[in-house]
């Protein structure tokens, strides 16, 4: 019996609402144990864009993933880290965010809000003058709810994505989406 397959095809279009310019985004896809990535790259990093028109940074980063799955648990989640790069090439964290890959076939416009850890008032002052600031030690706090209660965060901007979902053989298993 053929496995159910999911194609995720689209782009990380860009970001708005960040106070910094010259932004880049590191992204990755996390799935449960029942999912297997058949083709495509699971993670990547976009180019650094400095917008000339308006305040939206555009990445147009292509995403083309092909999954096969034996179960519905662990539906793919896209996690994002937006960083800003200054003229010296140093990177500063602008926001973390995640969103689930849509579960119905067709094209979807996604707006993913982001947040960043706040730190103590000393760290906030240092970040305003010198740059830097606290970062997460383990990236899985971005897409998991465990231990979030320890964090005090402030909000960053929004990342915009356009993803098209193509499902295959889901009707054979009686799955409605």
């Amino acid at each position, binding site marked *: 019996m053929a496995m159910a397959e999911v194609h995720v095809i689209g*782009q990380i279009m860009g970001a708005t609402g960040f106070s910094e310019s010259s932004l880049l985004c590191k992204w990755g896809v996390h799935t449960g144990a029942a999912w297997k990535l058949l083709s495509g790259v699971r993670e990547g990093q976009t*180019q*650094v864009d400095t917008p000339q028109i308006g305040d*939206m*940074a555009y990445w*147009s980063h*292509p995403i083309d993933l092909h999954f*096969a799955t034996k179960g519905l648990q662990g539906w793919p989640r896209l996690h994002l880290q937006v960083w800003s790069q200054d003229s010296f090439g140093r990177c500063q964290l602008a926001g973390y965010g995640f969103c689930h890959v849509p579960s119905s076939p067709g094209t979807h416009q996604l707006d993913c809000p982001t947040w960043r850890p706040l730190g103590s008032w000393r760290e906030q002052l240092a970040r305003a003058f010198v740059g830097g600031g606290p970062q997460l030690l383990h990236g899985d706090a971005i897409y998991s709810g465990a231990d979030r209660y320890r964090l005090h965060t402030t909000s960053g901007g929004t990342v915009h994505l356009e993803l098209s979902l193509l*499902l295959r*053989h889901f009707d054979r298993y009686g799955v409605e989406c």
Partner: protein
Amino acid sequence: MAAAAPSVFLLMVNGQVESAQFPEYDDLYCKYCFVYGQDWAPTAGLEEGISQITSKSQDARRALVWNFPIDVTFKSTNPYGCEIPHGLTPALSFEGPQIVLSVYGPDVFGNDVVRGYGAVHVPLSPGRHKKTIPMFVPESTSKLQKFTSWFMGRRPEYTDPKVVAQGEGREVTRVRSQGFVTLLFNVVTKDMRKLGYDTGPPDTQGVSGPSPPQGLPR
């Protein structure tokens, strides 16, 4: 009549490169080409083209219109047919086709320089799709190089525009987004449903989703 299950599907795309918005530049032409993985092969139509040179209209719209036709048909060529044997990874990857656009125009000295690169996946669901894509140029790394390239008319360019369609290797590039191009696609597919694919509701409105984020033209 033979009732054998189909082993390939067809994707027919027609449409146009409609228009562009570049506030700072005029007298532009664009080149398009299709980029696709090993699982696809074009069977009809043109894979690439160069448009006419267009200038901004004199009215308040300041529109740059190409109205340049696109007409291509792709065939999927997965040798495993419709079924991937359980537990095995297929040898070829999906890599849906993308259209890569490069826009060029004259600089103040009359040289032809690149004004933007952009790429978008060809939609796989049947229907009418309108896409507005941002166009960006690679940025010089230092102010001196920026001045030299402006003076000599040799701007930073990608050696192969198909790089724009890939995600790998992008993390070392710095770019500047400076315009938009609007594309229109009409998509017809054959045998995708018979092969088990569900592409979602047909898009008959032309523009889907909530209003575009600030920065995109309305």
